[in-house]
């Protein structure tokens, strides 16, 4: 139903995503804390959104008709900041100020500091509700804006998530897309052994979402899903994107221990070597 993404675009996105992953490692290393695992899992999704799908003006973050991206899993801030830098919106040097006193790059995305952040998040379960509010606002104002919310799967244990999702389904928000970074892991371990959320796609369907299941690291699939979401106007879309926590760094992949800790110098160096970063570890 939707056309295959051009190979050129896919190559551009892949290239950007590798660069973003390198920055995630460099910046969390420099910060000495942060959340590399869930930043690396969401990288390809955020790349597809910020480099292709979203309509926005990098020079005018307050353009009213822009599409909005709400990072409901606000701890994946490094992926968002790195994407802005690779996209040419933030100066790359600024990335190394992550989590430091006075930085615009707060530990969790913060609109008080950085104008490209649509909603400050950090406490899970709230971003999707703010996204619903933004989608309602756009509809009321007859603006063409579309709203994309990126959720974590641990975050889907929160009742607040489902209350807000229910509202999105009830109000038939065709301009809302909920994207689930289904990496299968939260802070303490696998979601399914802590508090299972399956069958998650059925849950979204039951909450009246046009629901798609994709491989969240397959750019053609991501682009297809986002394009299909645009064609669904009478209900919101949910994209369940199966991902790998820590994607791209062998020793972080699938490990809950990399949810919320920064790599050491040696670990960062190993990770950067795997990601083909010629620059190596930044100074801390």
């Amino acid at each position, binding site marked *: 139903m939707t056309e295959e993404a051009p190979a050129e675009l896919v190559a551009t996105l892949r290239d950007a995503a590798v660069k973003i992953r390198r920055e995630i490692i460099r910046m969390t290393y420099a910060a000495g804390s942060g959340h590399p695992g869930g930043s690396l899992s969401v990288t390809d999704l955020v790349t597809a959104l910020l480099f292709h799908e979203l309509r926005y003006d990098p020079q005018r973050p307050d353009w009213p008709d822009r599409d909005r991206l709400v990072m409901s899993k606000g701890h994946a801030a490094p992926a968002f900041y790195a994407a802005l830098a690779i996209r040419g919106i933030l100066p790359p040097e600024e990335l190394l100020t992550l989590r430091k006193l006075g930085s615009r790059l707060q530990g969790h995305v913060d609109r008080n500091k950085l104008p490209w952040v649509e909603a400050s998040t950090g*406490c899970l379960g709230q971003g999707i509700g703010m996204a619903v509010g933004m989608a309602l606002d756009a509809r009321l104002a007859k603006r063409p804006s579309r709203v994309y919310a990126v959720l974590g799967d641990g975050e889907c244990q929160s009742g607040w998530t489902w209350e807000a999702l229910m509202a999105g389904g009830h109000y038939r928000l065709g301009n809302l897309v909920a994207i689930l970074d289904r990496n299968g892991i939260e802070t303490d371990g696998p979601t399914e052994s802590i508090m299972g959320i399956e069958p998650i796609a059925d849950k979204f369907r039951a909450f009246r979402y046009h629901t798609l299941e994709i491989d969240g690291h397959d750019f053609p699939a991501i682009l297809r899903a986002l394009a299909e979401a645009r064609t669904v106007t009478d209900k919101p879309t949910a994209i369940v994107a199966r991902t790998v926590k820590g994607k791209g760094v062998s020793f972080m992949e699938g490990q809950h221990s990399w949810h919320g800790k920064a790599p050491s110098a040696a670990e960062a160096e190993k990770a950067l070597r795997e990601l083909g970063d010629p620059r190596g570890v930044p100074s801390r």
Partner: protein
Amino acid sequence: MSAARPTESLRDAYGQTLVELGERDPNLVALDADLSGSTRTVLFGRKFPERFFNVGVMEPSMMTIASGLALGGRTVFASTFAVFAAGQAYNAVRQSICYNRANVKIVATHGGLLVGADGGTHQIIEDIGLMQGLPGMTVIVPADAPTTRAAVRAVAERSGPAYLRLTRENLPVVTDGTFRLGTAAELRAGNDLTIIAVGALVARALEVAEELGEVGISTRVLDLASVKPFDAPTVLRAARETGAILVLEEHTVVTGVGALVASVTSENYPVPVHRVGVPDVFGESGEPWALLDRFGLSKERIRSEAWELLRIRGKVQ
């Protein structure tokens, strides 16, 4: 000057004490909301997997579930970061736990600015105010690991809801661990001025008191770990005997311990009370101890408020 005091983790102290209590009381259960490694309830979970419920990211429901377990007669410990325990879950704590008088002990880690790099969203500076406003709630803010151990045991022994606010950072050992509910511990005697502090700022209070001592000012230091029940007699005696009180807290001055001390003294024995706490703003990302300076809790600030009070009382020029 005193040699630097050794530091210890309050969170480890909690986790270990919880295991000890679990060994003694087979009816004791614990819950966490996907932060068991950080809160250290993981120690209990490893030892007693059948009595440990890591419910995932659902703090309000963790509190309602905790209440249900407690209403059946168990002693229940529930842990997560303070911003989720007191903030996210507030009404569950209010109704399911306090209104129902459920025997739930909320041990909230990562209170205040010392959360550090996670930023303002995670640095709850309102929790003491929220929790002390709840009828029937016990509120404890330990200054160190020995007090944490004693306080965890004390709340387990007594039926009813309790909120313990722990600090993420390791803190210097400043007490001998003889914590008593409802008692403000006098850590240093003095008659020129009283400094009352909670949590991480108790160590700073002692440091400033010591410096003042070197220039002949005798400063009383009270550790108000037991915020509620509040030790009014000891605080009022300090007001009478020293004539001025400086309150230090890693919390908003709007609803914190300083506001409490000021209202109790003002009604019973008015003396100047100055508050050193977080002004009416949210925190931000940064190195934990640098944030204390950034938000007005530096030693310089504490010193200058102390001298100001001494001037007001005419004890210095």
